[in-house]
């Protein structure tokens, strides 16, 4: 995570190549490897957010086979609700945050109960459309109740930049890394060492077999939505002090999170996290070294190349399909 500075020669070589390709004069008045380090550090912090969101996608997909396009809205809801609790109910930050996470989880449950559970034989495509409809609905409700304004959440522990080997980082970034680390550990413990976690993994391998051995598949689906909603809202809250929040922050974040999950092979753990980190870092390097206008395009081109060459993601073994 917070690595040491890469060796100067490697850094210089990369910079020189990139500068040559982009035909720009990069006259730096500071150490070139410092610049590179800054790109990487910033990219890692953005990537951690994508990772958290991607985990939400992966967890729901693994237990239900559904791609939940409304995942980005959970992220948005976390931050928006926290702000509302702080301003409308005058709650301190420490209370507002868990309350917002709980509220978002409840919304996730309602969503699952009303739209996913009643459907018995929906095609995957219908499910995609339903989740898109829910995301539009959630966005519309928030837009009406909350307005279209962008608002800032106060940083958890101040705004003074910290310097690490020449690259600067804000305290909020440390919170993000800490949360990501905690989530990785919690995920591993839950999915590999607890009964319900193992049950969820069983559902992802084969639903029918799982129900035959006595696992309540419907409840597992509910749990997966709850966990994803909670994760999403946590991601939204922890990043809001940096990026500010409004009713439509969910769209792009959701998309990038989905990318991260695909890169990671839809794993509910470390794979997706690494996928997110890679995505964020590549984006940052692309923006700084090649072209800021095309930075999103660079991220998606890399995704496409990855999908062409190794569609199961970086960390899964190949999939087999029964015919």
């Amino acid at each position, binding site marked *: 995570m917070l690595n040491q500075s890469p060796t100067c020669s490697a850094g210089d070589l990369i910079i020189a190549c990139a500068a040559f390709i982009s035909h720009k004069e990069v006259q730096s008045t500071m150490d070139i490897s410092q610049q590179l380090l800054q790109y990487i550090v910033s990219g890692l912090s953005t990537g951690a957010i994508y990772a958290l969101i991607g985990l939400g996608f992966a967890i729901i*997909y693994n237990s239900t086979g559904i*791609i939940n396009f409304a995942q980005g809205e959970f992220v948005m809801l976390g931050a928006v609700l926290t702000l509302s609790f702080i301003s409308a109910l005058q709650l301190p930050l420490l209370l507002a945050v868990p309350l917002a996470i709980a509220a978002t989880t409840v919304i996730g449950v309602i969503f699952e109960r009303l*739209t996913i559970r*009643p*459907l018995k034989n*929906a*095609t*995957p*495509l*219908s499910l*995609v*459309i*339903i989740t*898109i*409809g*829910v*995301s*539009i*609905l*959630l*966005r*519309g*409700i928030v*837009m*009406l109740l909350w307005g279209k304004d962008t608002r800032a959440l106060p940083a958890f522990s101040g705004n003074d930049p910290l310097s690490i080997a020449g690259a600067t980082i804000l305290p909020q970034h440390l919170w993000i890394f800490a949360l990501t680390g905690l989530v990785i550990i919690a995920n591993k413990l839950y999915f590999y060492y607890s009964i319900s976690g193992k049950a969820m993994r069983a559902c992802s391998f084969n639903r029918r077999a799982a129900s035959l051995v006595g696992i309540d598949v419907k409840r597992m689906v509910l749990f997966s939505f709850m966990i994803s909603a909670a994760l999403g809202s946590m991601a939204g809250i922890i990043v809001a002090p940096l990026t500010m929040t409004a009713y439509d922050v969910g769209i792009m974040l959701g*998309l990038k999170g*989905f*990318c991260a999950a*695909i890169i990671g092979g839809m794993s509910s753990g470390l794979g997706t996290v690494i996928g997110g980190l890679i995505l964020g870092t590549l984006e940052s390097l692309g923006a700084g070294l090649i072209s800021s*206008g*095309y930075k*999103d*395009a660079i991220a*998606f*081109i890399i*995704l*496409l190349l990855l*999908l*062409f060459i190794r*569609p199961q993601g970086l960390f899964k073994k190949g999939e087999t399909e029964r*015919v």
Partner: protein
Amino acid sequence: MKREMVKFLILTAVVLLAPLLFTGGYLMNVLVFVGINTMLAVGLNLLLGFAGQISLGHAAFFGLGAYGSGILTATYAVNPWLAMLLSAGAVALLAFLVGFPILKLKGHYLAMATLGLGIIVYIVFNETVDLTGGPSGLSGIPNLSFWKLTFDNDFKNYYLIWGFTLLIMLLSINLVNSRIGRALRAIHDSEVAARVMGVNARLLKVQVFTLSALISAVAGSLYAHTMTFISPASFGFHFSIELVTMVIIGGLGSIYGSLLGAVLLTLLPELLRAFQDYDIIVYGLLLISMTMFMPGGLVKGIPAGIALLLPGRRRRGEHA
């Protein structure tokens, strides 16, 4: 096939005579856009409904056709019909080349890949300011004209657009009822089984993808000449999702369903104007409830609804 012909002729008659009801009204303008959206929905349905391949980036082909025609006619003063041909040809070639690697993917991987493709194309539209005018758009695109007749008002554009739309619908109906159509449905059901039966699945998927892109590009050119102004915002991710919604709500695997879906989704904002700010919520609710309660789309849902209301009658499901 006779039944199909009769249905199609009735549709043609309705389309040709409808303007007499709405002359000069604002509704003509809306119907022009319904025509364009129908073309797009039919093209997408061939890929999505019949061949069963998800595409969340179809607005890209629409936009490429529009910008191709727009740039050639506005900046380089090429003859509009020639520009449309060149543009559609270029887009078809691109789709053919991209199709091979992309269509190896399945399910949500394919969805993500097409999504990514759509976004990359959108970014290119936005960033190549010198060519496309960037976010502020490209203006000065001439109207189409045929000898002395210039298509410069809603009435004439209606017939122009719907002429193309009906033609494309006719070709698509013929396609899906032919051997190729059956091969497509075989691929949709089980690709492996189809290949075992001798269907060149890979080539066929790419061919359908290319055809679908071609149709979208033609629609894009027509759109550019009708609006005389285009901007990247109309060709983004949002519109791709709208197209998929049209196809699904209308009914996957049904050409007439695509027509219904396009009609509904283009007219919906007009109908929802009454709700003012609440229209987004109504849109979302409609999407959810239609998908939940009418999974076969309107084309199955309306007859089913009628059957519910008239207990004596029974109607059999039909294709296209």
